[in-house]
């Protein structure tokens, strides 16, 4: 087993035990010989993918997934600081816009999606909770985002996502700007993603980077650069 593989295995182990500090130390040690961006690519990203698979198999707990998110968040801060010190390693993908839909304040899933997207190299504009359709589309237009990711926990708030679709249609931006939808209610009612006008959904925050890759490709096919 290579050093990289051993480090990944150890990292999975400490994350699943909830040992955030140990996980950070492990990544610090690896990054010492290269950089945090490289440590992210070599170690943390593959680990997140494996933890995502475990999540899909329902073999890990919410807390274990949350700790994975916190370790990613810690890494992003280090990469950001490293970028300042080394005059800038920029995210490679995006930009994209995410937020909880109008009237929705259940932020756990959206926060984790935001962290995992950034960990996978996406530039993310996270608009927070209770974001109106107009605010989502304005931000996407302003930043040149090709994906808007909208989260909702309840059926009642998920229906507000339809307003984002309406706004995209009204401004003739459907196709160019893809609409990703997610949240607890979509797991219970998968058909809802289509009903509210979503272009795609992911079963968990870990799967969000994969979904965004697909939607980005779709956008480029429909409206090339």
């Amino acid at each position, binding site marked *: 087993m290579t050093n990289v593989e051993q480090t990944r295995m150890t990292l999975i182990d400490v994350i699943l035990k909830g040992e955030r500090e140990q996980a950070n130390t492990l990544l610090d040690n690896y990054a010492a010989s290269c950089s945090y961006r490289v440590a992210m690519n070599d170690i943390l990203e593959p680990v997140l993918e494996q933890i995502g698979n475990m999540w899909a198999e329902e073999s890990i707990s*919410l807390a274990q997934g949350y700790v994975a998110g916190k370790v990613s968040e810690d890494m992003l801060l280090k990469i950001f600081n490293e970028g300042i010190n080394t005059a800038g390693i920029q995210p490679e993908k995006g930009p994209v816009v995410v937020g909880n839909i109008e009237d929705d304040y259940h932020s756990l899933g959206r926060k984790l999606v935001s962290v995992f997207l950034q960990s996978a190299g996406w530039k993310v504009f996270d608009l927070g909770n209770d974001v109106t359709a107009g605010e989502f589309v304005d931000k996407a237009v302003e930043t040149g985002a090709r994906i808007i990711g909208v989260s909702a926990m309840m059926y009642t708030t998920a229906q507000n996502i339809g307003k984002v679709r309406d706004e995209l249609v009204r401004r003739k931006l459907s196709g160019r700007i893809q609409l990703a939808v997610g949240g607890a209610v979509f797991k219970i009612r998968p058909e809802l993603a289509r009903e509210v006008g979503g272009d795609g959904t992911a079963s968990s925050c870990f799967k969000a980077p994969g979904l965004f890759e697909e939607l980005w490709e779709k956008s480029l096919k429909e409206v090339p650069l």
Partner: protein
Amino acid sequence: MTSMERVVAALQGTKTDRRAFTMTLSLYGAKLTGCPLTEYYTVPEKYLEGQIAVAEKCRPDIIFTPFALALEAQAFGSEIVFIPHDAPNVRKPFLRNLNDIDKIKLPDIEHDKSFLYIRTTSQLLADHFKGKVPICGVLTSPMDLPAIIMGVDGWLELLLFDRKKTATIISLMSEYFISMANSLFHSGINFLAMPMMFTNPHLVFEKTITDTVVPALADMFRQLKGPIVFHHGGNPLAEYLQHYQSLPNVGGFVLDPHDSFTEARKNVGENRLLLGNLDGPSLGKISPSRSIEKARKILDNRRGDKHFIFATSAADVAWDTPMETITGIYELMQQYGES
């Protein structure tokens, strides 16, 4: 036998005329009486009317106080939303910044409108059914209530990474929970059911459960003036029952629809009360005959188990559940005579 006698017999493991059963028909009472949900969950007399209709038409052996956990969050300052054909839910948790946990104050348990509604409803139900049908109170677990006051992410953050603030919150929840639960027992409920989420390894680390959650619950439960029914809270429970075995005042466990009773029995022994495990919220999506078939399988599986009450698991029975499903399950119980 009365329903009360049947349920007590299941607790004691003595013979009954038929299998005791219940379905979580808190919400369904509003459907039966045609009561708008904004009234049903705010006017105790309207809730009572709904449950009288449940008792007459569905004849369960246990009646529930409002299964509307968001009302407690509302008392702590969270905003709630009334949803068509469902119990109210939390729209906006009270606390958004964990540095502000000092802003969480214990509401006035005697006068707050949500608490008054829950307590008055419990009193009305207890008075009406006068010991013939047991009344099961429903409260949020004190270890879950913080999640609907500060959001799931906020509570996880504290539980995992901030012992001091966690202790502060648990102390506050403990003070609230013991007062509220005992006031419900004083109002006449016979036992208290609580969906338990942040007690389950599907949500939190086992070390959090053993080091923080269970000791806090043990301390609270031993101060209660009546028994608790430990509800699976939407996650499998059977394989983890050993964690909760020694909690004081726990009279029984409601299992998840995916749980195995055999595994549960292995973990808690033959003499603890087990309840469940027909999935209540899914009953609106499947035909009466299929629901009844599922119920029959559970009953066959539990044949000879004297400490078992057939019940629905998970959340409330769905609004769009056909009446034929409910009456069919009642009739099925008659076929499962003496237990």
